[in-house]
């Protein structure tokens, strides 16, 4: 321990000096700043070669599966289209009521009516078709894998790693091999959704089964159960509430993926509608269609969640008994069907009655842009000039008289570095060596920009950073990931992705942290923020792009907004939760020791909430990276764009490499953070 304490500052000092030397003396050496091509390894080509070999061998099998899956899909689709909307809506409402009572029922009905009236019933039903087929497949697969993982520790280790990859590799990336194997068409979306939606079910199954109290298990054994009886009668029912949470998460993941997979096209679903309208810059239409996605998301979420909650002891709503429920179900089907047969608008909503105010909304948007265009443009530019560009390109390449009002003269550069060194020196004087290291590090990044720092410096700094946070295993992982990003030829786009995500996460931490603190002190604020957070998190990520694009067109800034909207949620949540769950005893102890309110906040509340807040930061980072790829749809550069391009060219190797790169960045960040969290919470 003592040795480690002495070694780390020395190592950091060495790395800082080395980095400074590289950045100053080596500034003329081109190979330091562009990762040499001669070191590239043709990973993408290799993957292509494997992929095509595999496809040639097994294409028939996958095409066969695709054919087989197409049947139920077309069947469900045809059935739902044939079904009068009234029957569907009243049955869905009935199911929602059975699960969650009157409020859930009414909410479901109202949202479904919106879809009907706005005229997107057909598209909505097509999306639902995919989700409805995806859920049982993902739930069964997830349950089976979860049980396997629960029973065998070896399988569990493998499953956990697999889940990490399944959830961190961007969905776009694995659409490509699926496309190659299964051929174009909606089945691809279905398969991708199953892959994407299975992990939460696996995790919750394992969690639920692991949490069965040992005494309950033993009581099963002592009651004379055979192992099979014990599993189905004791363990599964006890873990059931947790598994239903899994079903809820699986459902939401399935919907999200079905929407994303719409970019392949071919199923006339609602995701395709939104995307198409967005591409044509028809904002009114895309908002109306986007709202349909929102409705579907809320309906699916509330219904599945209500059934999960009904298992909790505190829930009072129990619904009908199963026999009564079936009778009611049949009754409602028959009555609503007969009604729809006699009254045509109850079967198919007539075009004439549709309420589709897209044009009015477009006019409104144009008016807003016309009136506030200058303001929007200015705020966008300010953000670009003073935040985005410096982080991306560094002060050296972003400070110009037109934007900043002054040029970066040698005097100013001198002053800049003088302040930096003074800061570091002061920190050192007060024996805060970590701050003394951080100041020049951050200053250096801002000066040269994330894309302007030599890869050699990254290779020195990041592994040491990982080592300081989490020890040798994490270091190994981070170093390996860095090398992969470099030799596979995606280093530059990777840096661009990291830069955008870095800015977004930093803003999320500051804004989200403040909002979390605010919400923790005021019930009213908390009550306002919570439903907004819930909605932001239930929405398929895709939808968040619409307003951002509407007002700011395509570009980094737009992507930034969309990423922040999605990734800020965990930061707010965990900060609030962390602060709220600080034990009252600790606060009372503080008060009786004579702490001022400020002292109580900084030294007790924040300290005790820190582990939770760190978890929030970790989640925010992962969410940000996740959203980054979706944001590529609105024209960011970086890895997301690489994946997106690869998808349009069906370039399996390139797509997988870029996707793996994204996953490795996410997993590196996650591992470093988790290592740090487990250390601080000890």
């Amino acid at each position: 321990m003592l040795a480690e304490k002495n070694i780390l500052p020395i190592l950091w000092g060495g790395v800082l000096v080395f980095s400074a030397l590289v950045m100053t003396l080596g500034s003329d050496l081109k190979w330091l700043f562009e990762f040499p091509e001669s070191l590239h390894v043709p990973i993408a080509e290799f993957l292509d070669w494997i992929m095509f070999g595999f496809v040639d061998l097994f294409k028939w099998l996958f095409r066969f599966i695709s054919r087989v899956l197409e049947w139920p899909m077309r069947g469900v689709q045809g059935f739902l289209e044939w079904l009068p909307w009234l029957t569907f809506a009243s049955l869905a409402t009935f199911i929602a009521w059975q699960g969650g009572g009157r409020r859930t029922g009414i909410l479901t009905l109202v949202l479904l009516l919106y879809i009907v009236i706005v005229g997107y019933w057909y598209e909505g039903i097509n999306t639902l078709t995919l989700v409805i087929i995806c859920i049982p497949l993902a739930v069964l697969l997830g349950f089976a894998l979860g049980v396997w993982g629960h029973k065998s520790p070896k399988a569990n280790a493998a499953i956990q790693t697999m889940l990490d990859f399944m959830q961190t590799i961007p969905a776009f990336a694995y659409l490509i091999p699926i496309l190659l194997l299964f051929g174009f068409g909606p089945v691809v979306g279905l398969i991708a959704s199953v892959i994407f939606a299975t992990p939460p079910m696996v995790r919750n199954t394992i969690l639920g089964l692991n949490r069965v109290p040992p005494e309950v298990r033993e009581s099963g054994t002592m009651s004379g159960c055979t192992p099979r009886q014990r599993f189905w009668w004791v363990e599964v029912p006890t873990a059931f509430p947790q598994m239903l949470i899994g079903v809820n998460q699986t459902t939401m993941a399935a919907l999200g993926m079905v929407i994303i997979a719409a970019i392949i096209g071919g199923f006339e679903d609602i995701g395709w509608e939104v995307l198409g309208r967005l591409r044509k810059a028809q904002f009114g239409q895309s908002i109306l269609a986007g709202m349909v996605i929102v409705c579907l998301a809320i309906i699916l979420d509330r219904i599945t969640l209500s059934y999960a909650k009904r298992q909790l002891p505190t829930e009072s709503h129990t619904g009908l008994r199963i026999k009564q429920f079936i009778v009611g179900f049949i009754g409602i089907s028959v009555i609503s069907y007969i009604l729809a047969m006699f009254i045509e608008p109850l079967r198919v909503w007539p075009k004439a009655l549709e309420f589709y105010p897209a044009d009015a909304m477009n006019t409104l948007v144009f008016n807003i842009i016309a009136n506030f265009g200058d303001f929007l443009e200015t705020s966008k530019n300010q953000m670009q000039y003073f935040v985005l560009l410096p982080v991306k390109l560094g002060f050296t390449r972003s400070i110009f008289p037109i934007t900043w009002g002054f040029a970066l003269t040698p005097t100013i550069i001198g002053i800049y570095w003088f302040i930096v060194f003074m800061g570091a020196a002061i920190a050192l004087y007060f024996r805060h060596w970590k701050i003394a290291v951080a100041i020049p590090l951050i200053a250096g990044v801002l000066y040269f920009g994330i894309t302007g720092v030599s890869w050699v410096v990254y290779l020195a700094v990041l592994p040491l950073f990982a080592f300081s946070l989490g020890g040798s295993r994490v270091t190994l992982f981070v170093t390996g990931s860095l090398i992969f990003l470099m030799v596979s030829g995606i280093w530059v786009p990777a840096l661009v992705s990291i830069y955008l995500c870095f800015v977004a996460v930093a803003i999320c931490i500051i804004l989200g942290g403040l909002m979390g603190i605010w919400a923790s002190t005021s019930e009213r604020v908390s009550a306002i923020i919570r439903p907004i957070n819930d909605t932001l998190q239930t929405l398929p990520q895709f939808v968040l792009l619409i307003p951002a694009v509407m007002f700011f067109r395509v570009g980094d800034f737009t992507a930034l907004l969309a990423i922040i909207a999605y990734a800020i949620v965990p930061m707010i949540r965990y900060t609030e939760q962390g602060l709220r769950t600080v034990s009252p005893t600790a606060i009372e102890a503080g008060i009786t020791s004579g702490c001022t309110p400020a002292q109580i906040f900084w030294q007790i509340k924040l300290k005790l909430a820190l582990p939770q807040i760190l978890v929030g930061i970790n989640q925010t980072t992962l969410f940000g990276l996740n959203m980054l790829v979706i944001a590529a749809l609105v024209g960011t550069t970086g890895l997301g764009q690489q994946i997106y391009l690869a998808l349009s060219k069906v370039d399996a190797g390139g797509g997988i490499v870029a996707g793996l790169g994204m996953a490795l960045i996410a997993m590196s960040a996650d591992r470093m953070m988790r290592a740090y969290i487990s250390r601080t919470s000890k």
Partner: protein
Amino acid sequence: MPSANSVKLSCESLWKVYGNTPEQYFTGEIGSFNVEEKFQQLTENGSIIACGDVKLDIPTGSIFIIMGLSGSGKSTVLRCLSRLVEPSFGKVELDGLDLLNQSPKDMIEIRRHKMGMVFQNFGLLPHLNVLENVAFPLKAQGISKNERLARANEMIDLVGLEGRENSYPHQLSGGQQQRVGIARSLAAEPEVWFLDEPFSALDPLIRTQMQDEFLRLQKQLNKTIVFVTHDFHEALRLADTICIMKDGQVVQIGTPGEIVLAPADDYVKKFTSEVPLWKIIEAQSIMEPPDGKDMDRPSVKPDTLLEEVMRLFDGKTEEVQIVNESGECHGVLTPVSIIRALYRDEKKVG
């Protein structure tokens, strides 16, 4: 009906060791080491000895209590006896049948018909109501629904839970939940009844009440009981025989009186120091030889507690005589002999 002294359940050189390949310590050369050597070797190799070299004989129809602090191995022993935990080494016999040699299938049959168990945190199934929970062991046996619900209803009456049949565990108080646990463990009419700290999770007042009910039930049912507790007072109150465990080993086995009057070592003595001795010591264990005098004095039975005897000393009485069932005088007690016993004459008690 087997005699009161016959052994129902027993174990011998029972070991449960967690760690690296403990098997080697019970076979081959090291296997022949004595107990202390094994303890030392196992500890040095980093294994954890949950229980070591435990030998118990549990008589038919009696309450056998295993008492020890947490980590003493008492729960492990209980779970080895029911084979919930697979012992590392040793022998467990139920009615002379070697339990450790039973196939998993046979073991299920034995648990279905001969064993019942009550758990500290009740171990109830959260998704079943009281009636279904109690009927659960019968469901596992494949007994028809009507029959098992009828039997479950009887059990519910027995533990005094009439009217709560349709409640779910989370709607019940701790004491009620444990009544469900007790009813369930008795539903299949077991011969051996295991109770693992059944009353430890309950409030003190409820605990005493449940202990009384437990004694009432046992009077009615006459099961062979293995009862684990960390509460010495509870053990004294309920036990026919107490086994005290420490660090995985048995320290002393005896009746409550024996343990209180003759603690095997300082560890046991510490438990007994705060015990109200007059509630445990029986007249026969401290009486003095009869003096042959034939005077008018109160007489008591040999197993009368001192508490009762003391009440008889009014202003006139100087002696109490102990008389057996056929009326013979066995011995006498004087205030001095009682004071000496309660004061714990070190020399005499040793």
